């Protein structure tokens, strides 16, 4: 009897990674300058000084090469007030975003202004750079801008080899939701059951079940409980170590086709030497101890050979 809810399972998902980019000659020069407390612009084909500098002219697309240092004070062209700063922004207390035209520049730089309150912001106000405590060669070497009536903060410039690379950490948060079909499958796993669903149009059994059959474009419906054994349809031997790896190479990642299913899923085959795994090999789930089960396929630690004779090729040839 099926008592499992289809209410979508939902959980926070934090995504984090670093982008590492090479800067090239123009942005590299700009970043190296920031670390040394100077701000480089570049002269456009119409004679304007572009800050931040661009590699190519925004109007003519001509390659630009003539650097021009500009001032560290400038004028606010426009601003908006951020009463509740978001993660990663230059300041964690209320601040203004502004486009600041530095003295000697003809275009404006986007950055934060630390003015304390919106009453102290105005278009046309003069601001100066407040340098970051530890310059590394990035736009963040400008901690923010501040009004001229604020006492300046003394900060040491940095030095070293020219800056050629930039690493930007990215952190984004989501509320991830599984489909109703996937949610039943995940709840089934928490009970040690492998639940697939059958497409009402083509009768194929999918595990995990799908929000839409890739052949027919309709949600799968009838629930099928599948056994925890099946065959290896195809596999690869992982020999290369990589970040986050949990098992020492060599090991086998394989597509396992459970008996009665029409689609294989990816899992590990352990319990024999990697070079003994083969197509058609019969395998069975090695479940983790029951007290470790959750709504995850990790409840199955791996699949291991059953020792039975291999399945004939024709029995799984349609599922490769």
């Amino acid at each position, binding site marked *: 009897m099926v008592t499992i809810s289809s209410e979508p399972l939902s959980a926070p998902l934090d995504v984090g990674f670093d*982008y590492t980019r090479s800067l090239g000659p123009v942005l590299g020069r700009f970043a190296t300058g920031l670390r040394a407390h100077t701000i480089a612009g570049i002269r456009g084909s119409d004679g304007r000084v*572009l800050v931040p500098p661009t590699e190519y002219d925004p109007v003519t697309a001509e390659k630009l090469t003539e650097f021009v240092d500009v001032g560290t004070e400038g004028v606010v062209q*426009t601003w908006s*007030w951020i009463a509740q700063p978001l993660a990663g922004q230059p300041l964690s207390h209320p601040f203004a*975003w502004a486009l600041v035209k530095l003295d000697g520049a003809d275009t404006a730089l*986007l950055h934060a202004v630390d003015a304390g309150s919106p009453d102290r912001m105005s278009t046309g106000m003069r601001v100066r750079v407040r340098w970051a405590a530890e310059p590394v060669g990035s736009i963040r070497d400008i901690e923010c801008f501040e009004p001229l009536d604020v006492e300046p903060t003394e900060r040491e410039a940095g030095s070293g080899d020219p800056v050629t690379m930039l690493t930007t950490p990215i952190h984004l948060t989501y509320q991830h*939701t599984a489909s109703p079909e996937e949610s039943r499958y995940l709840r089934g796993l928490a009970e040690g059951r492998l639940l697939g669903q059958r497409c009402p149009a083509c009768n194929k059994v999918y595990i995990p079940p799908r929000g*839409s059959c890739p052949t027919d*474009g309709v949600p799968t419906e009838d629930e099928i409980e599948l056994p925890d054994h099946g065959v290896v349809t195809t596999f690869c031997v992982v020999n290369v170590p990589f970040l986050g790896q949990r098992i020492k190479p060599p090991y086998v990642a394989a597509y396992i086709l459970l008996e009665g299913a029409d689609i294989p899923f990816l899992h590990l085959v352990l319990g024999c030497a990697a070079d003994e795994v083969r197509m058609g090999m019969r395998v069975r789930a090695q479940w983790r101890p029951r007290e470790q089960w959750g709504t995850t396929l990790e409840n199955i630690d791996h699949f291991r050979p059953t020792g039975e004779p291999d399945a004939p090729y024709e029995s799984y040839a349609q599922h490769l």
Partner: protein
Amino acid sequence: MSEVAVVGFAQAPNVRRTPGTTNGVEMLVPVFHRLLADTGLSKQDIGFWCSGSSDYLAGRAFSFIAAVDAIGAFPPIMESHVEMDAAWALYEAWVKIRTGEVDTALVYGFGKSSAGELRRIMAMQMDPYLMTPLWPDSIGVAGLQARLGIDAGLWTERDMAEVAASSRRAALSNPDAQLAGDTTAEELLKQPYLADPLRAHDCAPITDGAAAIILASGDKARDLCDKPAWISGFEHRVDTPLIGARDLTTSPSTIAAAKAAGVDGVQVAELHAPFTHQDILLRQALGLGEEVRVNPSGGVLAGHPMFAAGLIRIGAAAAEIRAGRADRALAHATSGPLLQQNLVCVLEGR
């Protein structure tokens, strides 16, 4: 070159939050079924499929591939994707039909904006060296543009509130709208700032949604429906991503796209303006007079499903033609920060 027309349009309701997955399947399956039923086509009749969506919005890599399940993509289909609003996917499909490669195409866009923190996610579309590292939020950045126009005397906070109020009134007749109501600029101006000079009503709401359009060529289009909405002009242009090097009080790329598409004589316009001041800015850039009905659907201030909202403008403009309420209509779509990229599509009834 083949003539191309919009012959069908369907959308999911614009809502603040859906319980579905970020791959859009739950929203797309009913939209496809309705669209195919309306046109009498089956999926085998569709020559080309093209979509617009974003992995950053979905919080997962290659999210558009999972969405392909909603089509029922076996036997294999011809399919493509743009990581921007699906209005640009429609442009790709239009080219495919114009060049004679196919005679029908289905274009779809989807976005579950409620899954992540939209204001921060949008920082990922900015210059990755000079801007994204600062995490500029989309509303704060829009406030910079709004204030430039206010300071230049091009619009006032009251003008902006009038846009919001008229959007909500127009949306009363749009069953798919998220925000609708009979309100006034006075009422709206009593609300606090979200990012001075922007209040909540100045910003399109966070919206989950999806939409799809079927295009067909010449005789095929005439077979499929009584009154196809023929695409007579279709152009898109782009401005520099460096917002400090642009005149943000106008939109050179919109002006150039409109000139190339030929927008004279349009009776109705659906504009993709995620902020109230951008509605005013776009009317000026497009040279729309008082006689032009703008955003009869309520526009994106009444519902803004990311990556589908521009496509919906084309669907809504086509609906005006197909219902006989206009002979010549304009649809505009935007992508990128502060109206960086703009597309203009002109539709005609014949």
